[in-house]
C-alpha cells in the first residue's frame, strides 16, 4: 500500500472521528450520545492548547497530557499531525483539491511554490505565545487568545455551532433539535471564509495562518527523517510541486518546517526514484529556518506582549466587570478564566439546556466566544443536577465539579452551593408587582430547596374597583444560586421581569453581595 493511501485513510478516519465526536456531544447514555466517548480528545491532543495554558497558568491541566503524544510524534517524524490527523487540515486539503484539480498543471505547480508570506504564521504564533507569557500573579497580565486561530478549537467551534447546525436543519437529530447559538453566524462565516481561501491558494490557512502548524514546524524541523531528493535521477521538472500540500519545495532545499508529510511528491515524481523519505539531510539541501526574520519576530513578540495589558485597561476584569456576563458553574475567577479558555465551545455544545452561549464582543473582545449564560435561550436555566460543562472543558477554565460541590451537599455543606449569579425582580415589569395580575411562576419553578423566592401577600384594588389578592415574589440572596430558571420561565418574554446578573457569584469574592450565607 502506498504511503499516500495510508495518509488518505488516516485523514478520512480522523475526520470521521472528529465529526462523530461532535455529533455525540450530548449528555446521555445512548450510543449516539456522550456516554464515555472522548469528546474532547482532539483538543487534548493539541499542543498549542497545552503550551498556551502551560504558559498562562504555569501548570498543565491533567487532560492535556495527550499533547505530549503529538509533540513526541512531531519531534520524531515532523508535521505528521498536519498532514494525517488535523481535521481542519483535511478539510482544507479536500477543498483545495476540489478547487484546483481542474486547473492547468502549470498553474497548479505555481500555486504550490513556497511564498514568503508563509512566515506570517510564525509571527502569529510568536504574538499569541507572547500574549500568554507575562507573569501570573494577583494582577494577571496573561491572555490566552490562541483559541481564536488554533485549528482544533476553531474547527470544533465552527462545526459544533455552525456547520452541524446547518447540516442538521433538516433532521434536527445531530445537534439536538431546536438549539440556538448566538453569534454562530459569525463563527460560520469565518469558517466559510477560511475554507474558501483554498480557492486562492491550496491550504491557505495551513500555510499562512495556522499557529499550530507553525509550532509543529518549529518542533518538527529537527526530525531524524524527512522528505529528500537525490540529485542523481532528478530532472528538475518541478512536477513534485503539483500536489505539494505544504509548499515546501521538495525538489530543492526542502523547507522542513513547511513540509506536511503528505508524501504526494513521492507519488508525483515521474522518475519514481529521486524523492523519498529517509534520514536527513536531503541530498538536495534543506532549510531548517522557519523563514521569519528577526525583525518580524521582535515585532510579533512586542505586539503580543502588549495584548493583555491593553485589553485590561478598560477595567473589564476589575472595577468595570460586566454584570451581565454569567459564567458557567465551576468557572474559575475571570482573570484565570481568560488564561484558560481556548474558546472551543465544547461546553456550549454539551449544555443540555442550551443556556450556555458563546459571548460576542459586548463584554470586551477578550471574552469573544467564551461561554456565558443567556437565560432567554434554551429549555431552562442551568439545571441543578447537571455538571456537564466542567467535564467537557479541556483546559479547566470550568472546573470539573462533583454534584455534591455544585449543590453544596455532603462535604460541601459548609461552603454551600455554587452560585453563578443573583436574580432580582424588576418590580416595574412583574405582573403581581406592577400589573395587578397574579402569577407565581418564578417561585414555583425555583429549584433550590428551600426556595430562594418567597411570596409576599398583598391586596390591591384594580382599576375596575375589584380587590385582588396578589402574591408577589421576593428573592432571598442567601439562597439564590443564579441558575436562571426563574428568568427563563417568566412570562414577560421580552424583557423578563426577573433577571439574573453575576452578582454574588462564588467564583470571585469581590463580586459578593452578602457577607454571610446560611452555611457560613
Amino acid at each position, binding site marked *: 500500500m502506498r504511503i499516500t493511501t495510508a495518509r488518505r485513510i488516516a485523514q478520512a478516519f480522523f475526520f470521521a472521528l472528529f465529526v462523530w465526536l461532535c455529533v455525540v456531544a450530548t449528555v446521555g447514555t445512548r450510543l449516539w450520545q456522550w456516554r464515555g466517548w472522548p469528546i474532547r480528545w482532539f483538543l487534548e491532543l493539541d499542543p498549542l492548547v*497545552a503550551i498556551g495554558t*502551560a504558559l498562562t*497558568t*504555569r*501548570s*498543565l*491541566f*491533567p487532560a492535556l*497530557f495527550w*499533547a*505530549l503524544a503529538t*509533540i*513526541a510524534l512531531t*519531534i*520524531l517524524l515532523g508535521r505528521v499531525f498536519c498532514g494525517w490527523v488535523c481535521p481542519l487540515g483535511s478539510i482544507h486539503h479536500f477543498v483545495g483539491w476540489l478547487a484546483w484539480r481542474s486547473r492547468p498543471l502549470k498553474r497548479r505547480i505555481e500555486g504550490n*511554490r*513556497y511564498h514568503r508570506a508563509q512566515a506570517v504564521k510564525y509571527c502569529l504564533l510568536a504574538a499569541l505565545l507572547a500574549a500568554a507569557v507575562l507573569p*501570573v500573579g*494577583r*494582577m*494577571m497580565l496573561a491572555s490566552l487568545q490562541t483559541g481564536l486561530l488554533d485549528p482544533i478549537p476553531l474547527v470544533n467551534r465552527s462545526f459544533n455551532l455552525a456547520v452541524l447546525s446547518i447540516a442538521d436543519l433538516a433532521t434536527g437529530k445531530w445537534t439536538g433539535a431546536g438549539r440556538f447559538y448566538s453569534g454562530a453566524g459569525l463563527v460560520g462565516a469565518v469558517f466559510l471564509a477560511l475554507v474558501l481561501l483554498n480557492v486562492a491558494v491550496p491550504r491557505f490557512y495551513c500555510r499562512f495562518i495556522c499557529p499550530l502548524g507553525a509550532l509543529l514546524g518549529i518542533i518538527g524541523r*529537527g*526530525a*531524524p527523517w524527512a522528505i529528500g*531528493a*537525490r*540529485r*542523481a535521477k*532528478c530532472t*528538475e521538472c*518541478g512536477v513534485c510541486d503539483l500536489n505539494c500540500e505544504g509548499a515546501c*519545495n521538495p*525538489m*530543492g*532545499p526542502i523547507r522542513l518546517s513547511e513540509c506536511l508529510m503528505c508524501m504526494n511528491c513521492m507519488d508525483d515524481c515521474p522518475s519514481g526514484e529521486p524523492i523519498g523519505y*529517509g*534520514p*536527513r*539531510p536531503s*541530498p*538536495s*539541501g534543506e532549510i531548517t529556518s522557519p523563514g521569519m526574520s528577526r525583525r518580524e519576530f521582535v515585532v510579533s513578540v512586542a505586539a503580543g506582549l502588549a495584548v493583555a495589558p491593553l485589553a485590561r485597561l478598560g477595567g473589564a476584569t476589575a472595577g468595570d466587570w460586566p454584570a451581565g456576563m454569567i459564567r458557567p458553574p465551576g468557572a*474559575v*475567577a475571570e*482573570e*484565570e478564566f481568560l488564561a*484558560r479558555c481556548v474558546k472551543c465551545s465544547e461546553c456550549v455544545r454539551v449544555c443540555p439546556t442550551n443556556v450556555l452561549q458563546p459571548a460576542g464582543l459586548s463584554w470586551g473582545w477578550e471574552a469573544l466566544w467564551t461561554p456565558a449564560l443567556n437565560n432567554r435561550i434554551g429549555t431552562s436555566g442551568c439545571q441543578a443536577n447537571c455538571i456537564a460543562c466542567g467535564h467537557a472543558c479541556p483546559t*479547566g*477554565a*470550568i*472546573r470539573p465539579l462533583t454534584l455534591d460541590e455544585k449543590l453544596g451537599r455532603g462535604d460541601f455543606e459548609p461552603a454551600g452551593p455554587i452560585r453563578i449569579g443573583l436574580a432580582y425582580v424588576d418590580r416595574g415589569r412583574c405582573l403581581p408587582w406592577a400589573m395587578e395580575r397574579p402569577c407565581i411562576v418564578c417561585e414555583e419553578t425555583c429549584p433550590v430547596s428551600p426556595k430562594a423566592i418567597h411570596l409576599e401577600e398583598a391586596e390591591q384594588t384594580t382599576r375596575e374597583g375589584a380587590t385582588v389578592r396578589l402574591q408577589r415574589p421576593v428573592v432571598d440572596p442567601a439562597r439564590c444560586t443564579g441558575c436562571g430558571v426563574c428568568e427563563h420561565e417568566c412570562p414577560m418574554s421580552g424583557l423578563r421581569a426577573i433577571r439574573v446578573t453575576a452578582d454574588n457569584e462564588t*467564583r*470571585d*469574592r*469581590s463580586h*459578593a453581595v*452578602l*457577607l*454571610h450565607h446560611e452555611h*457560613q
Partner: protein
Amino acid sequence: MNPPGTGPEPVATRREFFLRGLRAGAAVAATGGLAAWLWNRHPPGDFGRAQASDPRKDFSVRSAGPRIAIATGRDRAAMLRRALAAVGGIERFIARGDRVMLKVNAAFATPAILGATTHPDLVAELARLCRAAGAESVIVTDNPINAPESCFELTGIGAAARAAGADVFVPRPGSFRAGTLPGGRLIRDWPVLEEPFAGITKLIGVAPVKGHQRAGASMTIKNWYGLLGGRRNQFHQDIDGIIVELAMLVRPTLVVLDGTDSMMTNGPTGGSLADLKATNTLIVTTDPVAADACGATLLGKSFRDLPYLVRAGELGLGTTDFESLHPARVPAQAS
C-alpha cells in the same frame, strides 16, 4: 526558482543520523519531564484560593504595662504632651532608631474643624515628639474612603505631617496583601495594608471621638478599618464583628483618642459644627479597648451600649473597665 545545491551531494552519515536521533529522543524526554513537572501544578481555581498570610500587627511594648492617661483642656498639643508624660513619657515607648507609623483617620476630605478626621495639630505634635525621642522616621498613613490625595490635603494632615518631618504614605492597590486573620470569620483572604509597614517598629493610632450610625461609636478600634482594602463596605453587614476582628488584628504601641470636640450626631461624617460638642478631653493609652470605653462616656454612653466593645472585652482584647487601670488624670493648667 529553487535550484538545488551546487556543491557535492551531502551524505547523511550514520553518525549524524545517530546524533539526530539522540537529540530527538532527548527532546521528547525533556518535554515529558517538563510536562510531568507542570502536571496539575496549579489546579483550576488555585489562583483565587487564599494565599493569605497572617496579617496581624503587634507593636505593643509589653514592658510598659497597661497605662492610661486622661488629659483635659483645649490645647491639643499641650494635652498630648501632658498625657504622654503621665503614661511614662514617650521615651518609654519610642526608642532611638525606631521607625514609627502614625495611623490617622483621614477617611474623608473634610476640613479639620468638622471633627471627622484626626486633627492636624495632633499629628504634627506627635510626629515632632517621636522625632525628638530619636525616631529615625515617622510615616503617616490611612486608606481613605474618599480620594486619598485630597483627603490628606484638605484635612490638613498632609501639611502638618510634612512640617513636622514625617512622610505621608498614600496607599495604592498594590500596597495590600491578602491576609487571613487566625480566628477571624470576616478577615479571610482579605487585602490588608502591608507596604508602608515594611520596617516599622512602632505603631500609634490617632483618632477622634465620633458617634457612628451603625456601630454606635467610631473611636480607636474602628480607626484600624483604614488598614483594610478591597470592597470593605461589605463588612457593614456585620459591623460589630469586623470591629472586634480589627481589635484582634492590631496591637498598637499607643493610641491617642481625641475627645476635644466629640462628634455627637450625624457620625461618622458629620458635616456641621453643630454636630460637635466640646468635651475637652484627650486620652492616651496602651489599651484601645480602655480608650474606647473611656471615650464612650464622652458620647454620653457606657461601654455596654457598644456591642463591639462588650465583645472585645469578653475576648480579652483589652479592659472595658478603664478605671481599673488607674488612669492618670491630668487637668488643664493655666499655661
